[in-house]
C-alpha cells in the first residue's frame, strides 16, 4: 500500500504533463476541424466573391456576343474559340481572390459547330446562336473554389410573308418578330432584298416598328419575284437572315 502511494506521489507530475498534452491535442484538433469546415465553404459564399463571379460571367457573355456578331457578319467560325481563349488569358491575370483559371468547352452537336449555330433560310424560325460551358477555378490561400456556368446567346427571327399581285408588281407584307434569348428584342437595322434571276436586289419599302420586337415590312417587287431575303441585325450587332418564298 505504501509502495503504491509512493508511486502515485512520484508520478503525479508526469500524469499532469500527459493530461496537458491530451488537452492540447484536443484543442488543436477541434480548432483545425472547425477551420477546415470553414475552409470548405471558403469565400465562395461571400457576397464579394459572388459579385466577382457574376461580373466574370457577364464579361464572358459580352465576349460571346462580340464573337457571334463577328461570325454572323462574315467572320470565321473559329472566332468564338479565339475570343474565349483570349478572354481566358486576361482572366488568368486577375488575382483579387487568388489565381483564376477559366476553362471553356464549346458546344458541339449536329447543329452547333465550334459553339456556333446558324439556322438561316431554313424554316419559320431563323437562328444565330452560340453556346459554351465554362469552369472558373479560383485557387486562393485558404481555399479552391470552382464555379461552373454555361452561356447561351441566341438571336432568332420568326416571321411570315404574304403578297398581293397588282398588275406587274407584287405588294409583299412581311411580319417578323425578333428575339434575344427567347425574349422580344429590338432591331438595329433591317434590309430587304428580292430575287431577280441570280441576283438579289435591295429594296426600300416601309417598316412599321411596333416597339415590342415585332416589325411589319411592306415592299413592292416585280411580279416574277419568287423569293425575298431579310437581313435583321439586333441591337448587339448579331445578324440573322431569313428567306420567304412568294408562291
Amino acid at each position, binding site marked *: 500500500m505504501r509502495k503504491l502511494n509512493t508511486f502515485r506521489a512520484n508520478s503525479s507530475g508526469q500524469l499532469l504533463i500527459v*493530461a496537458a498534452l491530451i488537452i492540447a491535442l484536443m484543442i488543436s484538433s477541434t480548432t483545425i476541424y472547425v477551420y477546415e469546415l470553414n475552409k470548405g465553404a471558403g469565400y465562395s459564399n*461571400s457576397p464579394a466573391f459572388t459579385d466577382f463571379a457574376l*461580373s466574370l460571367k*457577364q464579361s464572358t457573355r*459580352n*465576349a460571346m456576343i462580340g464573337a457571334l456578331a463577328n461570325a454572323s457578319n462574315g467572320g470565321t467560325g473559329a472566332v468564338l474559340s479565339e475570343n474565349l481563349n483570349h478572354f481566358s488569358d486576361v482572366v488568368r491575370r486577375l488575382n483579387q481572390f487568388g489565381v483564376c483559371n477559366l476553362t471553356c468547352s464549346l458546344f458541339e452537336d449536329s447543329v452547333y459547330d465550334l459553339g456556333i449555330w446558324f439556322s438561316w433560310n431554313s424554316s419559320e424560325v431563323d437562328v444565330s446562336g452560340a453556346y459554351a460551358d465554362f469552369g472558373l477555378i479560383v485557387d486562393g490561400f485558404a481555399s479552391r473554389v470552382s464555379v461552373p456556368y454555361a452561356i447561351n446567346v441566341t438571336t432568332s427571327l420568326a416571321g411570315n410573308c404574304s403578297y398581293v399581285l397588282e398588275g406587274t408588281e407584287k405588294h409583299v407584307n412581311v411580319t417578323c418578330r425578333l428575339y434575344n434569348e427567347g425574349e422580344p428584342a429590338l432591331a438595329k437595322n433591317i434590309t430587304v432584298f428580292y430575287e431577280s434571276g441570280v441576283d438579289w436586289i435591295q429594296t426600300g419599302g416601309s417598316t412599321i416598328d411596333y416597339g415590342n420586337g415585332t416589325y411589319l415590312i411592306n415592299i413592292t417587287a416585280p411580279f416574277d419575284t419568287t423569293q425575298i431575303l431579310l437581313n435583321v441585325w439586333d441591337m*448587339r450587332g448579331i445578324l440573322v437572315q431569313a428567306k420567304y418564298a412568294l408562291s
Partner: protein
Amino acid sequence: MRNENAGQIRIIEAVFAVFVIFSAFAVTANLPAAQNTSRSDNLSSVGLQVLMKLDSDGSLGRNLDQGHWTVLRECLTLAIPAGISFNMTVYDEQMHEVNTAVISNGGFGSQEVSFTEYVCASRDLTLNCYAIHLYLAVTQ
C-alpha cells in the same frame, strides 16, 4: 536529495503543462480567418455592381473602345450613390493605362478606400479586354 527537490520539480512540471496548453491556443489562434467582412467590402460590392450595371447592355465596353471618358465619368456620377467619391483607371491587356482623362469626382477624404477590379470585354466585332480599377471612398 530527491525529497528536497520534489517540490521544485512539481512546479516545473506544472509550468510545462500550462505552457503546452497555451501553446496549443497560440498555434490555433494564428490560423488565418476564413472570412472577414468589413465596410470596405460593402463599398467594393457597390462599385462592382455599378460597373456590372453599366456593362449589362455593352455600353461600358463601347465607351471604353471609343475613349468617351467624360461620358464614363458622368455615368459613374449618376450611378454611384451620393456621398461616395470615386476614381477609375482603365488599363489595357498589357496593363498600360488607357484613359487619357481623369475619371473621378474629387479627392478622397476618407481613410477607408475600397478597391474593385473589373474585367470588361467589349462587344465589338474585334474583342477588346480592359481591366478597370475603381477606388471608392465615403466622402467626409
